């Protein structure tokens, strides 16, 4: 009977295997889907036929996993570690096709692209990426408003700040800003530096030349941007996402906005019918007014073909088709989006007329999007921009930090095997305390033994104990053991692995500031959340003491959020929205400081986790504590009452001894889950935590899938295991009555 059932189970499970492989012969095109949608690319896919095109805003996460899976799509434009992929030969060289004819056959394909736009991913005579969308950074302004108020578009930075002051004085915030994503400050900084330091110095900075960050021009550029942000950004804008800030601008609640040229196509549906969109070049911070607008800051949206995909050549065909001169007109016209194809941008609508003129008049172009940058600087820059906008450091300090980060990267690339001994003290302390806890807590395990245990016959053993042990070992124990081994390798998941011994641990413990920041965040969670949740649930368990119907109903209610999983995180993400219900409610109570308060910004994220934890995790503790309270003999309370004990004394003398084991065990479970925490940070930061807010769990994901350093990621997991084991040992030691 049992055998039959188990067989049945596995047969049914087998059905789940039938699904994959449905699109075996179609060319796969996996695209990032922003606000502008994928209509054009879909339409092209339909016309060309046999193309399976799909996309969503989180496509890059999924593709990272698929690349490790060894099954890349043919074509993608998602945000992936391309430098690494190119180095490992995973990206197709498009050179042969670029030298060949274009789709219409009117000339070489490469001649169809705007000058310079093919250079970004060109190395040693090979070209690995194809530009499609063309990005120009500009200031968008409310043209009608400017006309009505008699404001004039500025050419220099000082004219711009004067204009901002004027707008401010009229009662309108001058600049909307997409502050949740600090990336949007990048064009301002780069623009200022390009004009202050000149093209040569600008290029040197991208190449991380010594002295190209800590210099007066850079400090000046950072100062200008910080001042602009401090005085003229719309209040609350640092907590706004890009769509929110852009809607503020379009609704006339701010006069200007800095954005790339995708702005119009991204916001198409949100532009009010009578809105007059205008653009001017980001003003240059130098006295000579002629320089602004002559140099435009550009970039492009690049498409890549994966060389290990099933049919790379057909992927290239799709790209030739979508960039053909006749076809791409449709994209320009339908989306009002500049593209990197020669001659197509004259089809832009009159809304972007000023932008098109800027492009025409430009004598030169510059930008990160055109030159290769060190991937190591990406995270550094993101942190620097955050601190700049939030005024957590002076421009001089930031320039210095950039310089030393660049220096570190230079040293690293010169000598990749070396480990910088940055944190020897902390590393010793961590290892020492883990070891001490393990030694202190370790004892010989004692297992329950039955009185009259029989021995199972072999066939019964095979039926009863073998299947569960097999599944458990194969899918849990074996991978754990493999992980211990894998932590000693350096491996990117693509090529062969090399044995490096303890190098990964050394790299993390001695040289990685991000690791220590993540560990500190874990420690914060371990210290605060379990204590708060335990006290909270203990308090309410005492209030819920008589075990009657209303109390039981409340207990059931309080318990429910525990069952919601990531649902509770997503609900709170909505509550915490800057213009969301929580802030509305708090302001209506008179706490006006909470208007537009950014609960989930880097600075407030961790304290904001506390209400979420109380809400979602207390119920479980509470139910256990209540159960323990019912165990207290009623006579003891009566005796204490006769002795004249007050409520507090009764609690300590009578209830607490009964509660202690349960509360203590619950507390430790919470501490251990704080060590393992991942989902709350991952989801509340929209899957891209900055280096300041990582916990070990999210750092592991980032290291493994975004940076393709699998050995180091596993080493993080092993350190996690060490932490949990040490805590478990300490728990066993400190409460012998449990377990």
């Amino acid at each position, binding site marked *: 009977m049992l055998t039959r059932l188990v067989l049945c189970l596995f047969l049914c499970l087998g059905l789940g295997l039938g699904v994959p492989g449905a699109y075996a012969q179609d060319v796969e095109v996996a695209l990032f889907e922003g606000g502008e949608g994928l209509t054009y690319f879909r339409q092209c896919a339909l016309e060309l036929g046999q193309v399976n095109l799909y996309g969503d805003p989180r496509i890059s996460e999924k593709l990272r996993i698929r690349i490790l899976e060894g099954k890349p799509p043919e074509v993608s434009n998602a945000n992936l570690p391309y430098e690494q992929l190119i180095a490992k030969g995973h990206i197709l060289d498009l050179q042969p096709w670029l030298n060949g004819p274009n789709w219409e056959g009117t000339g070489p394909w490469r001649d169809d692209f705007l000058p310079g736009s093919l250079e970004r991913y060109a190395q040693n005579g090979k070209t690995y990426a194809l530009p499609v969308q063309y990005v120009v950074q500009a200031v968008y302004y409310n043209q009608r408003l400017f006309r009505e108020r008699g404001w004039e578009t500025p050419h220099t930075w000082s004219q711009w700040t004067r204009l901002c002051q004027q707008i401010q004085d009229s009662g309108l915030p001058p600049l909307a800003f997409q502050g949740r994503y600090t990336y949007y400050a990048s064009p301002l900084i780069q623009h200022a530096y390009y004009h202050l330091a000149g093209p040569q110095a600008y290029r040197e900075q991208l190449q991380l030349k010594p002295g190209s960050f800590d210099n007066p021009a850079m400090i000046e550029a950072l100062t200008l941007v910080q001042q602009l942000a401090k005085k003229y950004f719309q209040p609350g804008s640092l907590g706004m996402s890009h769509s929110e800030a852009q809607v503020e601008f379009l609704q006339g609640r701010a006069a200007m906005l800095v954005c790339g040229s995708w702005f119009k196509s991204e916001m198409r549906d949100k532009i009010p019918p009578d809105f007059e969109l205008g653009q001017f070049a980001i003003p240059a911070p130098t006295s000579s007014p002629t320089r602004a607008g002559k140099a435009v800051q550009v970039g492009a949206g690049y498409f890549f073909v994966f060389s290990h995909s099933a049919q790379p050549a057909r992927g290239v065909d799709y790209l030739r088709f979508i960039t053909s001169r006749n076809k791409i007109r449709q994209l320009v016209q339908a989306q009002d989006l500049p593209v990197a194809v020669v001659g197509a941008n004259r089809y832009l609508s009159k809304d972007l007329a000023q932008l098109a003129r800027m492009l025409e008049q430009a004598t030169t172009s510059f930008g990160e999007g055109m030159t290769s940058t060190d991937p190591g600087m990406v995270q550094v820059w993101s942190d620097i921009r955050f601190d700049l906008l939030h005024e957590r450091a002076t421009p001089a300090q930031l320039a210095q930090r950039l310089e030393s980060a660049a220096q570190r990267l230079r040293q690293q690339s010169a000598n990749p095997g070396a480990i910088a001994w940055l944190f020897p003290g902390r590393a010793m302390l961590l290892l020492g305390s883990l070891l001490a806890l393990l030694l202190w807590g370790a004892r010989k395990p004692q297992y329950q033994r039955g009185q009259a245990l029989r021995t199972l016959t072999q066939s019964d053993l095979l039926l009863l104990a073998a299947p569960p042990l097999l599944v458990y070992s194969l899918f849990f124990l074996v991978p754990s053991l493999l992980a211990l081994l894998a932590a000693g390798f350096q491996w990117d998941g693509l090529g062969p692995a090399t044995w490096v011994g303890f190098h990964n641990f050394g790299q993390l413990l001695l040289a990685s500031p991000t690791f220590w920041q993540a560990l500190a965040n874990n420690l914060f969670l371990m210290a605060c959340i379990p204590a708060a949740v335990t006290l909270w649930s203990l308090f*309410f368990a005492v209030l819920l003491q008589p075990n009657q119907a209303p109390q039981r109903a409340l207990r059931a209610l309080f318990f429910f959020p525990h069952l919601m999983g990531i649902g509770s995180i*997503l609900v709170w993400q909505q509550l915490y929205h800057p*213009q969301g219900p929580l802030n509305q409610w708090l302001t209506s109570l008179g706490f006006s400081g909470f208007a537009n308060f950014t609960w989930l910004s880097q600075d407030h994220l961790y304290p904001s986790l506390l209400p979420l934890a109380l809400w979602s995790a207390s119920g479980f503790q509470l*139910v256990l504590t209540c159960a323990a309270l019912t165990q207290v003999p009623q006579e003891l309370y009566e005796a204490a009452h006769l002795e004249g004990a007050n409520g507090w004394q009764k609690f300590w003398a009578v209830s607490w001894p009964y509660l202690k084991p349960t509360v203590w065990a619950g507390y430790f479970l919470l501490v251990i889950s704080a060590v393992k925490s991942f989902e709350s940070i991952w989801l509340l930061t929209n899957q891209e935590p900055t280096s300041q807010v990582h916990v070990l769990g999210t750092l592991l994901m980032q290291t493994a899938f975004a940076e393709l350093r699998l050995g180091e990621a596993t080493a993080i997991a092993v350190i*996690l295991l060490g932490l949990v084991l040490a805590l478990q040992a300490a728990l066993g030691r400190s409460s012998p009555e449990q377990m």
Partner: protein
Amino acid sequence: VRWLTRGLLLGYALAVVAPLMWILLSSLRPSADVVADPLGWPQRWTLSNFEDAFVQARFARYFVNSLYVTVWSTLLTVLLGSALAYSTARFRLPASGLTQAALAIGLIIPLQLVVLPLFFMLKWMGLLGTHTGLILVYTASGIPYAVLLLRGFFWRLPQELYEAAVLDGCSPVQAFWKIFLPLARPGITTVALFTALSIYNEYFLAFIFLSGQESESLRTLPLGLADLTMVSQYHADFGQLYAGLVLVMLPSVMLYLLIHRYLLEGLSEGAVKG
């Protein structure tokens, strides 16, 4: 004191209910209304958010997937878990110390440690991006908890029952299937419910093992929800997300309303008897 107690409890109850009610009400309003006045009482009602969630966000598909994965993983976890719990509680296994140590460590090992090697193991077995792979991983990670909770149940059942079964000609397997499994039903139900609810809401493993394109149509509800938060952000339109959240929570709420007594009693009993 009495009134203070009541006030505090009422406040806590409101704090638990209010966010859920807000999501429910917001899912029934046009998104523009929610943006304009997040806390207002709905002036216009609409079901279009739910329509979007079903049609655009493919929630019907995700729901079927979640159900499939949850049901099979729970069944397997409970069945395999109770078989192992029964055999460790009632019999002397070869290398029983090792078995118990292996199970005890399974309660501690963080999933993050397992996930990367498992990724490549599943890839090698051809199980990556399949429901089968995910179900097996859920089962494996659920077994130690199931054994921990169920061993006590099998242990407490009187030995005479077993002797009687053997006299009637039952083999140990038959005794398990016909006598012990039915008798352990209260414990098994509690374990099954907790397993089911935690798998229904599981995000991390599903995210890693079901992210390939071929798995697009295999995704589970938590993945669909997480995707929706990003899509909603790009469109500055959260109606679909609210509807999605309501749809995901609805089955748990209904199940919970039906069995909360049972669930909490099982939990309390387990806590007290340790």
